[in-house]
């Protein structure tokens, strides 16, 4: 068969993404129709920059969702090598394709004769699965430590700030090279760190509910018991592993709901660890700024508990800058994940994530461009989308 022309390649790729387009159009139509009742999210659709950013982010989110859940979009398996397709240019037809195999490598083959297009699509699942969650966890850590540091001040603040500055003074890449190695994993340091970092969302949730319902013990006790019970089960399942790199080996296996892939766990933990000090500093600064306001003084006079003031008075009032920073930080986390992949740290070498693929592709970059350029532009578009989204949100939230 003849190779495809560029026009045909674009049409076919466009066709592969059909479910994503449908989902995108639906999202936009519904959101714009009800934008007046959707708060800050609805106002996002008043700004062009915000809409472009949102579209880029949602494009990759839907791609990852449909690929991860239903295995749509991708044309080939990301690990299968097809003979004769090594370093082939985009649009090359597979000679004698097996029954049911897609006939073309839409964006060419890489140096191991794997389909570049499918690898990029599959890679988005890894990025979209890790980056937002790692950022969310880092936020839980940063908020849980930053609020009391800013609110109480004093020795607690001095100590926590020193610790945060200590981590920030490490060049990120050095930290990664020290933390994300098989030797360190053998000692179990990532497992200890996971145990320490993953407890924060639990503390955060418990504090949040406890401070809200403190005055009504009949509601508080059952709610807290259910939430902490479920949270603890999820927490223990996350840090205990039946196979290796384990810290908690006493946890019975029938209560171990799932096992986290140890490689992903190391990457996840180190990204959370690197991100939390910055968020701590942001939250602490915002708290310092807000705690002198009248509504805080009013709550203190009412006799509210410190955690109630922190979580239900201060935190909702500083959400604007935090939401904007959250979007920016997902982008930054995506860049960090790419960096880890680029240096071959953590994730397995055949992993289709974008950083690893760029690293694979760069070796032959002066001759074959497509294996490195395609993931590079994918990463660029996602991070750009997140930055534009953050910019749009900032603009709209400043309009109040």
């Amino acid at each position, binding site marked *: 068969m003849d190779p495809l022309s560029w026009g045909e390649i674009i049409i076919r790729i466009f066709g592969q993404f059909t479910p994503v387009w449908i989902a995108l159009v639906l999202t936009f139509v519904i959101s714009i129709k009800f934008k007046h009742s959707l708060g800050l999210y609805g106002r996002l659709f008043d700004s062009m920059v915000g809409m472009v950013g949102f579209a880029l982010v949602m494009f990759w989110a839907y791609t990852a969702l449909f690929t991860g859940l239903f295995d749509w979009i991708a044309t080939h398996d990301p690990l299968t090598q097809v003979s004769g397709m090594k370093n082939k240019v985009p649009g090359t037809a597979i000679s004698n394709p097996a029954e049911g195999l897609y006939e073309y490598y839409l964006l060419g083959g890489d140096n191991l004769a794997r389909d570049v297009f499918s690898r990029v699509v599959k890679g988005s699942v890894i990025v979209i699965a890790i980056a937002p969650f790692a950022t969310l966890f880092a936020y839980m850590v940063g908020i849980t430590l930053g609020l009391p540091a800013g609110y109480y001040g004093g020795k607690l603040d001095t100590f926590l700030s020193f610790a945060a500055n200590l981590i920030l003074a490490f*060049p990120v890449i050095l930290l990664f*090279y020290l933390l994300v190695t098989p030797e360190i994993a053998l*000692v179990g340091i990532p497992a200890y760190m996971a145990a320490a970092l993953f407890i924060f969302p639990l503390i955060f949730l418990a504090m949040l509910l406890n401070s809200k319902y403190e005055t009504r013990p009949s509601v508080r006790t059952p709610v807290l018991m259910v939430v902490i019970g479920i949270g603890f089960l999820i927490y223990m399942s996350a840090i205990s592993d039946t196979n290796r790199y384990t810290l908690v080996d006493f946890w019975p296996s029938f209560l171990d709901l799932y096992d986290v892939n140890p490689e992903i766990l190391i990457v996840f933990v180190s990204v959370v660890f690197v991100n939390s000090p910055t968020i701590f500093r942001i939250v602490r600064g915002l708290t310092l700024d807000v705690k002198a306001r009248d509504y805080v003084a009013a709550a203190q006079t009412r006799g509210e508990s410190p955690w109630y003031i922190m979580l239900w008075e201060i935190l909702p009032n500083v959400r604007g800058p935090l939401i904007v920073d959250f979007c920016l930080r997902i*982008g930054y986390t995506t860049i960090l994940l790419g960096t880890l992949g680029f*240096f071959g740290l953590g994730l397995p070498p055949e992993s289709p994530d974008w950083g690893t693929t760029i690293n694979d592709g760069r070796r032959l970059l002066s001759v074959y461009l497509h294996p490195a350029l395609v993931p590079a532009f994918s990463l660029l578009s996602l991070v*750009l989308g*997140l930055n534009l989204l953050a910019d749009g949100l900032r603009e709209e939230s400043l309009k109040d």
Partner: protein
Amino acid sequence: MLQFIGRRLGIMLLTALCLTFVVFFLTNLYPNLEKLAKTQGNFRMSEEQVDTWLANRGYKRNMFIKYGEWLGVVPGYVITGTDGETRARCARKGSAIEDASTYCGVLQGDWGYSTVSKEPVGDVLLGLSDNPETPRDDSRPGRLQLTGYLMMWAMIVTIPIALLVGIFAGMREGSKTDRTLSTFSIATSATPEYVSGVVLIAIFASSAVGLKWFKGSAAQAMTAPGLENFTLPVLTIALFNIGYIARMTRASMAEVMTAQYIRTARLKGVSFAGIVIKHALRNALIAPFTIIALQIPYLLTGVVITETLFNYKGIGWQLVQAAGNNDIEMLLGVSVVSVVIVLISQLISDIGYVFLNPRIRLS
């Protein structure tokens, strides 16, 4: 002011000690040492052999003592091993053990030896020679000099462009210029070095479809830096930082332009150019200055990526090599250098902020 600097220096020292200890601890964990023993001794060593090998060389002692020795505040070990040989930490090849100095650590300028190239770590990194009889070849500069050169040029390109972009965007907020320049800076700050480097190589250096203006490798730039082999690495580092600094400058400039004293100057009839140059710039540049100094830790990450991508043998390249080869002393040396760079840049940022901002200076 002196008290302020003194306190900052104290915290800096404490931070440096903590950081180097963390690195020391992580690099000297047992699996790393076991790997070291097997690569230095032989790969088929049994567990007991590994243990004696490590014990004979002083590795199997308290982490704090080893750290003190490495730092140079605890006397170096002298151990008569189970194989009858006496080894001392401070002994040098070709001289007797009795002649060895008591202390030999980073503070004495003794950084240990790379286990891969067998060269002294201090010499490789700093390009110095502590032995006057074998002076280093001047044509092989130290890793730090090479990285410093790269960072200097990256800064020379970044700072003027970033400040100009930020000032022009921020002086008329919401204008067409602002929109265009802001989009540019958002786009560049969304482009990490490994993306921009790949794209730049594809456009300018690829032998298949590229313009072939520059080279995709900066290996020659170490001895003969020129436009052809040095442009792409410098641009790669600069691009990412331009976006960030420009956005900070824009925010700072836009804030200053709405201030009361600018309105007063305007009502007095000062021309727009006069307002920007005489009244706004001075105040608008305080924040970017601190940002530039604080960017240096991030710049270091960019340098590691760029040096790896372009095969430029500076500190970053050395870090990747040392980590890949379990070269413990070298990894420690690289960490010391990068930690010192980061801390000094933070100090400059702090002091500079105080100097530039009269509200803080006078109180």
